[in-house]
């Protein structure tokens, strides 16, 4: 970073942005904008500056501006990233090339069509499935879960559904039907949850010909994940799981028991009692 920029001044950076208007364009084209960049500006800030000052028709998807909502996934300087979580001057002081996420259809400019992505996510039933449906619908207590049991899946629960992993996956590049790292990681997130009893229901989506067998562990989904979810790890654990179950070394775990009342807890010393229920 040069001294001018450290003193709060701006440096001109060229933003090369992919443009595509489905109503007028037959093929996407690249358009250049010069953006005055100051220290700390993110790629998303740069896009907002272009929209406010140079071209109001530039389209993209964003919301929280803090790497939580997962809306602003883009292909920035040849790598899938969140536009809000990457500072311009950390990437380049000269040129930022922004394209929509690959492996998704382009709706307009930098807006990818995530419909199929969410359909795949939904297909693996990403929610707790219990055999005691009456208890699940009208709970009489909490499901018991130890901190160790929580650690087994909590990493995979941090997914913000930004879709970067699918755009980085080389298998997705040639095979649209592949379930993909995001959905498979979510399948493992629930399969490994001690409260869940739905492994068999997810099986046909996870272990079929479009499931885990198509992952060849390029590891890019884990590299690009902005939340440390590590989808490729989850897929390898799914593979291990099916191997152990096929060899009859492991069985589906039984769902966690329901703690009917707080009295079932054994209180420890120096820990205050919980507040009274408000509902």
């Amino acid at each position, binding site marked *: 970073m040069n001294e001018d920029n450290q003193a709060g001044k701006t440096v001109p950076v060229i933003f090369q942005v992919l443009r595509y208007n489905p109503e007028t364009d037959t093929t996407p084209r690249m358009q250049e904008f010069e953006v005055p960049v100051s220290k700390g500006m993110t790629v998303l800030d740069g896009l907002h500056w272009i929209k406010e000052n140079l071209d109001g028709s530039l389209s993209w998807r964003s919301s929280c501006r803090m790497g939580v909502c997962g809306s602003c996934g883009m292909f920035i300087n040849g790598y899938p990233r969140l536009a809000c979580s990457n500072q311009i001057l950390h990437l380049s002081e000269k040129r930022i090339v922004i394209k929509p996420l690959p492996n998704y259809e382009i709706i307009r400019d930098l807006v990818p*069509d995530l419909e199929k992505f969410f359909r795949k996510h939904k297909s693996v039933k990403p929610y707790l499935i219990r055999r005691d449906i009456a208890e699940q619908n009208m709970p009489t207590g909490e499901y018991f879960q130890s901190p160790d049991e929580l*650690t087994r899946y909590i*990493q995979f629960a941090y997914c913000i559904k930004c879709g970067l992993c699918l755009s980085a996956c080389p298998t997705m*590049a040639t095979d649209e039907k592949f379930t993909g790292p995001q959905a498979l990681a979510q399948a493992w997130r629930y399969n490994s949850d001690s409260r869940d009893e739905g492994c068999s229901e997810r099986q046909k989506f996870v272990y079929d010909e479009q499931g885990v067998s198509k992952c060849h562990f*390029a590891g890019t989904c884990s590299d690009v994940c902005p939340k440390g979810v*590590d989808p490729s790890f989850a897929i390898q*654990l799914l593979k291990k799981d099916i191997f152990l179950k096929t060899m009859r070394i492991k069985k589906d775990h039984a769902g966690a028991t329901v703690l009917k009342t707080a009295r079932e807890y054994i209180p420890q010393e120096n820990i205050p009692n919980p507040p009274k229920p408000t509902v």
Partner: protein
Amino acid sequence: MPDEKKLQTVQHKKNRLGIAGWVYGGRYGAERYAYTLHRITGLGILFYFILHIFATGSRIWGEAAWTRTMALFDSPVFKAGEFLVFIAFAYHALNGLRLLFTELGCWMGKPQRPVIPYKNAVRRQRPALVVLMIIALVIIILGGFDFYLLGE
């Protein structure tokens, strides 16, 4: 109000990378390059296998046909090609071993709470990749000696 009919006819632009995305390593990690090389070497070994079946199958046309086929392959170009197949085999076998072990959960650690800077399982198994690639390189060098110095 947007024209509903017009909106329905507007097509999204396809942006699937295809074979280019399959080959492109870009700024991704070493495992992405290992993935591409694994596929290329796999296809190379498959091609060699078909050629091998054709060559050995020529024996059914008699001894003369067999001798002609062997004479065709007895050239420096085919010998270099055969050494390339050996390199492909050494890489494919060793990298395949890594994939086999990682699919069984080896060398990847356990799930843990994501704490910045994130360290994923791909990084945790990378030493295994390095060690196996060094072994592959040693096998290739030894094979090279056998092909070009001891084989004659």
